[in-house]
């Protein structure tokens, strides 16, 4: 779909996603990272929309922005008391990290671009697919779906158990 506006908007969101992700990684301040992560998620969600996966996009926004990100922020708050001004995290093995960063990204991209056989199939996804997701969920993917729900349950319980506060008796140490 060679619609210029469409293209521009795509590049815009792509830029938002990538740069915010870069900021998440490179900023020393955890708070900033957390908030720039918000933008990354949004950008990703927008890209999902571009990929005509509206339902996923919505889920992304809900779950990530609404759930995970908040969790992360809580975590930040818990671990670093807000009063402490420095939320900076210092870094370790920078050089191998950078080498790998460049190397892996370069390698993957080279792979992608040296591969000329991407054939878009005749039946690309068009329009909303919520209905089809529902259909698939209840037909083909019902077992994974159930397992996922059980997993979530277990995760909730586990997380609650792990992160619960101890009795005043045994946190005196």
């Amino acid at each position: 779909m060679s619609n210029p506006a469409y293209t521009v908007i795509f590049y815009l969101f792509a830029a938002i996603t990538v740069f915010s992700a870069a900021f998440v990684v490179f900023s020393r301040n955890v708070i900033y990272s957390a908030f720039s992560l918000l933008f990354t998620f949004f950008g990703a969600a927008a890209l999902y929309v571009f990929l005509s996966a509206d339902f996923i996009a919505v889920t992304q926004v809900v779950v990530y922005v609404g759930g995970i990100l908040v969790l992360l922020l809580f975590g930040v708050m818990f671990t670093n008391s807000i009063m402490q001004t420095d939320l900076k995290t210092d870094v370790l093995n920078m050089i191998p990290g950078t080498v790998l960063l460049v190397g892996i990204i370069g390698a993957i991209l080279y792979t992608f671009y040296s591969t000329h056989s991407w054939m878009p199939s005749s039946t690309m996804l068009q329009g909303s697919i919520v209905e089809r997701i529902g259909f698939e969920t209840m037909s083909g993917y019902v077992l994974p779906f159930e397992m996922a729900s059980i997993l979530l349950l277990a995760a909730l319980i586990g997380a609650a158990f792990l992160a619960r506060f101890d009795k005043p008796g045994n946190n005196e140490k």
Partner: protein
Amino acid sequence: MHSLIQLSIVVLLLPLLSFVILIFFNRKLPRRGDFVGVGILGTALAISLYMFWTVIVQTYDPAFKLAWDFTWIDFGNVPGVGPLEIRMGIFVDNLTVIMLAMVTLISFLVHLYSTGYMAGDKHYGRFFAYLGIFTFSMLGIVLSDNLFSIYMFWELVGLSSYLLIGFFFEKQSAADAQKKAFLVNRVGDIGMWLGILILYSQFHTFGYQQIFDNLAAGKFTMSNAWLTAAGILLFMGCVGKSAQLPLHIWLPDAMEGPTPVSALIHAATMVAAGVYFVARIFALLTPDALHVIAFCGALTAFMAATIAITQHDIKRVLAYSTVSQLGYMVLGLGVGAYSAALFHLLTHAFFKACLFLGSGAIIHAMHHEQDMRWMGGLRKHMPWTFATFTFATLALAGLPLTSGFMSKDAILASAIGFAKVEGGGIYYLIPVLGFFSAMLTAFYMGRQIWLVFFGESRTHLKPAEEHHGHDAHAAHGAHHGHNDHGHEEHHGVHEVAWNMRAPLVILASLSVFAVFSPDPLDGAKGWFMHMVQTPETVVGRYTTEHASANLSAPSALMAESVQAEPAHHTMTDAVPAANPAHGATEAGHGESAEGHTFSDHRQAELAHESHAAHYTAIIISSIMVVIGISMALIVYAFRIINPEKTSEAIRPLYLFSFNKWYWDEMYEATVIRFSIVLSKMLAWFDAKIVDGIVNGVAIMTRNFAFANGSFDKYVVDGLVNFTAFFVNTTGAVLRKLQTGKVQTYIVMALFAVLGYFVYYLTKLIY
């Protein structure tokens, strides 16, 4: 077995018995057992005299022959040869019997003499033991019938001579002399042994008779040169034993032995053994070999005579005269005067033994003074010795009425005849040398007589430093410890006792012509020349030029000898020819020489010519002898010519003679030096090179082993250690990687991923 054979065996074994008894028990017996030796030899003498009587006197037969043998070694059935046996045996003929009597007689006399001469010696008993074994082996040579046993006894004679020369072994000179004698004889024996080998390899037998028969039958398959070589090689044995050129050097030194030994061994018997041996093998000597023998003998006779002129030691003079006389005998054999040579052997044995024993008596009386320069005037003190010594000297010089005259003339006559037969030229050298030596003999013997017996005593002239010389010389203790004698007039010079005098008398009286021949001028009339006759040669057919001459043109002589008698081939049927000839005295003197006819052309010719030359020889030699004696008188008696001045005038010649023609020096410089150096070189070669190579190989191997070992140690084992070390270090390094920091692990994992990527992509590209 014939009784004579048994007797001869007894005679042979008796001296051995004496040896065995004395060598083991001489210290236990009274008088050190000398009576045992004398008694046993007396018995042997009696037996052999009985044999002499029966054979020579009763059965007066030139062809007398007895043989007996037994199987010594049985080889079984030898492939390629058939049944093969080595037989030992005894061969008795006239010559044997005569030699037997001669040897036992002289040996007995020497035993008797030694009881006086050797009295008081430390090893008195041992001396008689040695004499016994010598007599045994000498008799063995005389009696044996084959080359092998004669070679064995030959060496045994050498051994006993070795023992007796070195009897005073404390004396360095004696020890050297005995070694020299044995080795020089060994050199001769090598040749003899090779000769024996040649004959054996042809006929597979050692016996004389078998060899002669095979030769006569023409079974000798090698070339004639080999036959001549065999003859000459066998003669080499004689050269060694009879001290002929060039192996004569040991005999003068052998005078280091006690004087009786010199008389017995080195004058009468052993040195004659060589001549006897050549006579035994005479039949197989080719003319070429005979020529060699003749020249060898002539040169020896001449050389020894010239040396004898200038010697001072009384025994050395006699020694060289012995060499010279042996030269005569060998010469005689060489020119084919078989019986004459043996005749001379016999006569010489007697008078030379007499001379030696006489000189022994003198030395004994002079307290072991041997240098003639310090003697003189002894005739007053020792009349018996003087008389016998002088008569023996005349015999040696060859004056008429003596035995030596007859034998020597017979030889010289044959020499002239030989020269004629061989066609003159160089062959006349032989008689000329012979006559010249006769003159020299007369000269030096006259000199000796005069120096020893006449004039005044010169003992006081002896320079002082000579004392130590002959003190050491007399150090063997056979004397009674008189060290400083001689300055006063012949202190204690006296005639010797009877047991030393009797032998002198007996031997001197045996040198009278009448013992051998009725005619003082012609030994050929005597019994000896009749009983011992030249054997028929068996090699006529092998001789090159003579055979051809013989076959091509049978000469008149051949023809007449044939018609005189029907064709004869062996001694035995030549005998009837001999007997009438002997009886027929009107046929003129020397029938027996001619009467025995030869089927071989050359021998017949020789016999004839030598007979013809008889009177010539007599005349010439008599003149020579007279010249010699008168020269001796001129020089030493009347002192018309001053010997010292003369010797100064002809100093080089004098020195040449005085130093014995420098033979010893020559051998010393060449053979001995060479052997010693070579042995040193080879020993070095062995120790350094051969063994060095071995050790070198060993060292190389060892180094290789070291290299190998170090390889094993440092490379193979090192590899193992290195692996361990590597694992260790890498482990240490890698342990550092295990930081426990999850992120580090992730980094590594990602590096792996990246690595895979790179690999994959490169695969993708290429």
